[in-house]
């Protein structure tokens, strides 16, 4: 392990030096960043125990214009998250210390930050468990760098609406511009992905969207992908927006086809 213990200075977080986090960071890449460099570089927190993979991820991410931070164990993942305040988290499911699923749940408990799981197993149960724990998307090792970058970009891309675009499903009010969802004036806390999913459905009232269409519009998959992504996230969304998730009125299943929004 010593060979991996002192990688390039970019691996600040995995060494605990916190170069990305401290307000008095020594270099230009520290946060809060000097306005001339890091403002436009999205921050990615890589939670992975494999040093070689983490380093390679760092190389690829930097080439693609991201600002990576690293943490190698599940125990320290939350600290690293607080310090790095990433725009996206890349989370390996198999971690020493704490299970990746637990980390995922903890992250989700306090933040809507996009989480992309890295998993060695496309085994059904594993992936579904990760999605249920709150991950937005997953990518199976080994992956092409371009695929990884596409997944991360898709999670960073946000729906933009007209300044005053107002949508309504059932008794839910959506203000697209300000990312605000309310029922009876009470705000609801949705993750960006859940928000995108709800808005995508709300924009085409009464029209059925297939899972493939949702995968393309919300997740940014150009080819058919895993429809379980849609299924699990619809369940998560329903748990938040439905009064009775057993009898949904906001996101309605059209058997064998897909989903549609309930009437406004």
């Amino acid at each position: 392990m010593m060979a991996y213990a002192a990688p390039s200075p970019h691996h600040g977080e995995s060494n605990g030096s916190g170069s990305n986090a401290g307000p008095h960071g020594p270099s230009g890449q520290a946060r809060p960043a000097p306005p001339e460099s890091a403002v436009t570089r999205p921050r990615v927190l890589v939670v992975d125990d494999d040093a070689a993979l983490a380093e390679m991820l760092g190389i690829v991410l930097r080439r693609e214009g991201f600002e990576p931070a690293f943490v190698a164990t599940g125990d320290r993942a939350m600290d690293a998250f607080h310090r790095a305040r990433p725009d996206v988290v890349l989370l390996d499911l198999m971690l020493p210390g704490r299970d990746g699923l637990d980390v995922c749940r903890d992250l989700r408990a306090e933040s809507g930050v996009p989480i992309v799981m890295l998993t060695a197993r496309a085994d059904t149960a594993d992936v579904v468990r990760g999605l249920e724990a709150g991950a937005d998307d997953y990518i199976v090792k080994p992956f092409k760098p371009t695929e990884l970058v596409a997944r991360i970009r898709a999670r960073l891309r946000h729906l933009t609406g007209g300044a005053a675009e107002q949508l309504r499903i059932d008794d839910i009010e959506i203000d697209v511009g300000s990312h605000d969802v309310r029922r009876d004036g009470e705000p609801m806390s949705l993750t960006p992905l859940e928000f995108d999913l709800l808005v995508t459905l709300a924009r085409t009232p009464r029209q059925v969207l297939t899972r493939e269409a949702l995968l393309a519009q919300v997740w940014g998959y150009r080819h058919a992908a895993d429809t379980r992504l849609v299924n699990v996230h619809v369940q998560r969304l329903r748990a938040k927006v439905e009064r009775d998730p057993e009898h949904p009125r906001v996101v309605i299943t059209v058997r064998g086809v897909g989903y549609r929004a309930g009437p406004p």
Partner: protein
Amino acid sequence: MVRTSRLRPTHWGPAHLVKGATRMWRRSLRLRVVALTLLLSSVVMALLGVFLLDRVGQGLLADKRQAALGDVSSGLVYARAQLASAVRSDPNAVDALVETIDTELGRRGSPSGLFDVAVLTTNRSSGFTTSPLDTADIPHALRLQVRGGAEAETYANVHRDDGLERALIIGAPVSADVGSYEVYYVFPLHTEEQTLGLVRRVLLLGGAALVGLLAAVVWLVSRQVVTPVRMAARIAERFAAGNLAERMAVHGDDEIARLAASFNDMAGALQRQIDQLEDLSRAQRRFTADVSHELRTPLATIRMAADVLYESRGDFPPAMSRSAEILTGQLERFERLLADLLEISRYDARAAVLEPDTVDLAGLVRNAAAEFTDGAARAGTRIDLDIRGDLTPAGSLLAEVDPRRVARILRNLLANAIDHAEGATIEVALVTSADTVAIRVLDHGVGLRAGDSERVFDRFWRADPSRSRATGGTGLGLSIAREDARLHGGELVAWGRPGEGASFRLLLPRRAGGILGTAPLPLSPDASLVRAT
């Protein structure tokens, strides 16, 4: 249109009863044992009763006859003496004497009603009888014998006030100077018959009671045997249903206890075997998962490194640049091979799980075809779709299948077809019936030799070793596709003729866990398409 309604069978018709009884007879050991016991003991009791009655009757009659013969011989002595003293000249006096003899003889028996006596004149057909005896009751055959000079006896029915009655009749000739006479003693047998009737009733009642008791005893005893046997059957059923912890209770040391102990031993051995197999399977699954993880992580790293090199290959000298290209290409191949190997080993470990979902098969097929459009074009061929069945207005065709596996089967079949199509069009047909889905991928390329239609599903099998795998197949695709089909409870079969092409037909039950119906689509293209409703 006339609607005919079929007659419904009456629920409790005689045929039904007979059937039910036969069924019970076949199914219940206890019923059979008790019924056989009843039958055999009844037969034995009946035989015994008949024998006893016969012996008792014979004994009674022998006693009666002995006493009767004594009465008769003493009566005859008296009658002979009286007649010897008679005077021949006076017929009236003789008649009076005969009457006296009759009365006297009758009196000997009359106090007890033991017998009646008739004294008849042989040649004049006249005589005297003690009341209530009627001469006509004496059988003719007996009279003939007596007239012939012999003492004779017979059993006959005689008339009494209350009808006919069985009687022993003994006749003897008495000759005297005054003439020939016949003396008949009639011994009614009603006392003996009464005794016999009583014995018969006692035997009947006793026999019936005994048989009933025997049946009850057998019923109870058979319970001792049948109850544990039934219990054993029940427990064996539960065991077979997967309840491996089921054991029989062992009481005492008898045969039933030994049965229970042996059953438990067997169950224990089976359970250990199954546990062992499960452990092995679990270990295999673990291993597969671990290998998967351990291999994939470094592979992901290598993959990214190779891609970084590949993208910068323009800056490298030619040899290094080409090396980067080869590295990337072979890595892709290696990844596919690893993925397929892991999938196969998951099947071998029986760790593959079906994840059925109601999906649009038409869409699945269209997507798969679209995915291969470019590849087909590069191979100089194209893919034609023919989708039939109960399509919804939106053009979807619903079925409950595992979409990832079906998509994978389609990808494997299409890749294989493109590899072997030789530029001819590939025809993909999707046809459904109410219970079965058929997808056929047909090419008109190199085809398959006889016997190869099975071997084509063997791992790493190649029809022609010199042929390259243009679409980069691993040699495991069709094996995995067949496993995927079987996991659905479906089938994947191949057909082919050299130079004419090959056809692969996938059949899946339309509902998860369903049974395959008739194939809505033939395997070979010779037969025309069967149009489904």
